[in-house]
């Protein structure tokens, strides 16, 4: 039984006409066993640092100072850190701020990008490749180059230290990349579908909403999950464009918990776990939508 055969489990029995013969069943069991054991090894390596973070969030500060950050906890574990992080450390407010920023940005940037990708991939516009590359080039720009101009421009327009500014900047920053990804997915959709619809009298917008967009569901789901995570956990834009601490989203709020010479690591760990939960939920929801390629079979 080779490893490569595990990656693509056979749909039908490779030997014998009786699908339930013993060899097949044993192969399937060994197959499952190897899959799960290799997956568990990989997951264990990946989860180990996270487990340490979660462990730290249940320790008391005295214990951390006594025994060190990466050590086995000495004294008893406490659960007060989560309550403290939620109220005193302001995680509730920070979470709300993160949602206020993230949801509009994800909707706007994915919406605008899918429009642009649709137009560029399905229609014969002049310079479409240059436009696409120019948009992607926008993402290659180091963000640090634009920090001071952002501050100056937003102050000049009187919108400094406002959520609107952060939303606008984050949307603009994501456009190039999302357009590029969606372009790649939309390009692969067969033109027969589009031709059939336009013969029936459908305009571009109808084609977009009824044909192309549903077929891009795996890509949109993947991008939605990534975009949500990216924006939710953003630090640089929020500390540059926002000045008032009760407007800070989660990462900026967590960073503010760090002192110059010391930090309450147990509190910060608890805040980090709280901040991670929305993204985990979003990921769990969206990862089920990665099943979408089956729709392409509609052409045949």
């Amino acid at each position, binding site marked *: 039984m080779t490893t490569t055969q595990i990656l693509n489990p056979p749909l039908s029995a490779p030997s014998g006409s009786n699908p339930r013969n013993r060899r097949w069943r044993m192969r399937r069991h060994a197959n499952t066993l190897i899959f799960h054991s290799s997956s568990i090894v990989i997951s264990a390596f990946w989860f180990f640092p996270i487990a340490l973070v979660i462990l730290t969030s249940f320790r008391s500060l005295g214990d951390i*100072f006594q025994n060190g950050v990466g050590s086995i906890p000495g004294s008893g574990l406490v659960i007060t850190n989560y309550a403290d992080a939620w109220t005193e450390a302001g995680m509730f407010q920070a979470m709300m701020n993160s949602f206020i920023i993230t949801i509009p940005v994800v909707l706007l940037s994915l919406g605008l990008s899918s429009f642009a990708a649709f137009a560029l991939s399905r229609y014969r516009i002049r310079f479409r490749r240059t436009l696409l590359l*120019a948009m992607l080039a926008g993402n290659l720009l180091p963000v640090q180059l634009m920090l001071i101009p952002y*501050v*100056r421009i937003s*102050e000049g327009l009187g919108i400094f230290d406002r959520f609107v500014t952060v939303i606008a900047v984050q949307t603009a920053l994501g456009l190039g990349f999302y357009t590029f990804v969606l372009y790649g997915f939309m390009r692969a959709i067969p033109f027969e579908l589009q031709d059939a619809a336009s013969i029936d009298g459908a305009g571009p917008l109808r084609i977009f909403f009824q044909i192309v967009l549903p077929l891009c569901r795996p890509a949109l789901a993947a991008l939605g999950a990534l975009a949500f995570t990216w924006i939710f956990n953003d630090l640089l834009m929020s500390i540059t464009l926002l000045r008032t*601490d009760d407007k800070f989203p989660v990462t900026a709020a967590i960073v503010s918990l760090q*002192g*110059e010479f*010391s930090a309450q690591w147990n509190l910060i760990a608890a805040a980090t776990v709280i901040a991670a939960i929305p993204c985990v939920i979003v990921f769990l929801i969206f990862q089920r939508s990665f099943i979408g390629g089956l729709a392409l079979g509609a052409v045949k």
Partner: protein
Amino acid sequence: MTFRKRRFTLGTGLLAAVSLSLTGCLGTGGSPVTPPAEDADGPLSLQSRLADGDEAALQTVVDTFNSQGGGQVELNTVNNETFRAQLPSYLTSSNPPDVYTYYGGANLRDLADEGLLLDISDVWKDAPFSDGLRALSQDSSGNEVFVPTSYYWLGVYYKKSVWEASGAEVPTTWDEFLVANKALEANGVVPIGIGVSDAPWLASAWFDYLNLRVNGPQFHIDLLAGEDSFDSPEVEAVFDKWDEIQPYFDTSASGLSFPQAVTDFTQGRTGMFLAGSWLQFNLPAEELDDYDYFQFPIIDDSVPLGEEAPTDGFMASARTDQPNLAKEFLAYLASPEAQKVMYEANGSGTLIPANPNTETDLAPAASKGQAILEKADGLTQFFNRDSSDALQSTADQALTQYLVKSKATPLILSEWQAEAEKVRAAE
């Protein structure tokens, strides 16, 4: 590709013309601003870089001020590093925060000399602060721009139980210090603990103190101001002295992080830690009585006694639209009542109130620190506060190289001097 080519030529064509106008847009600061006579409405914004206990103390003082009815102050706390990076942006903004937490020293003077800080000499008229504190709070033309509220000490912290077990005694002179190191080493304890992988500035504490002890405070200040060079014989003498204790330093220092170095110290693997009173925040609360500190040993009695006393306080932006309320608030912060509230709300006893008239009982560690500092002939702040962050990073490089002995000391010093000159040229 036509679009990109067009844009390129357009860009270069505009470059000459626009760059001039851009400097007009960006070139802020330098032009003097007259503060308005009447205050604008709204709360005074206080931008703070403090965290934990210090922040709680500040919030208490702000609440006390607000309840007095003179005006409202709003506290805004950001991360220390964020504050440091964003400070020029704050001060040159068209709508800056009004009051800021900050510290005295060369950095303050640099900001004030750019005309970014509010002149608060009238707040200082009857202030009972010492001349040293006054000098620390002034810009280069002698106007006060800063109100000190607290200062703290640096000392060599040790764990009493570990020293007793090793038979080491608290030293006051250099020779006694060497004896104590030997005793600790004989007992299997790494005598001097330090971790520089993420906190290289810890090594500057050792450099500062050795320089103060060997050459005196005036030389130290001159050196940091650029009037002496790092490869001078005086600095070489400092490193000759350091060579005597270098074998006692933790050999894994370069790979050790600050939290881990502190843990090694609290668990008794290392014997002493030169740090400011803020070290106490990292010590386990239950065992706090087991820790104490001693003054950095005297090397030469004939050299004037210099001590480090980093001073924290508050300043105001020159562009504030509420200068009167800002001055009122700063005057309140300077008062003994406010400093008493801050000291007691902080609760850690690690910061000494700057106003000598403050009526509060200092914790034993703080009284000890205050006594040591009062006897000093000269006070300095700390390497980065006396020079600049840029010079601090040259010190980080040089001192880490010294600790791991990657090069011969004369080479390290001449490279350090070259880097320092580059920094000064860029300023």
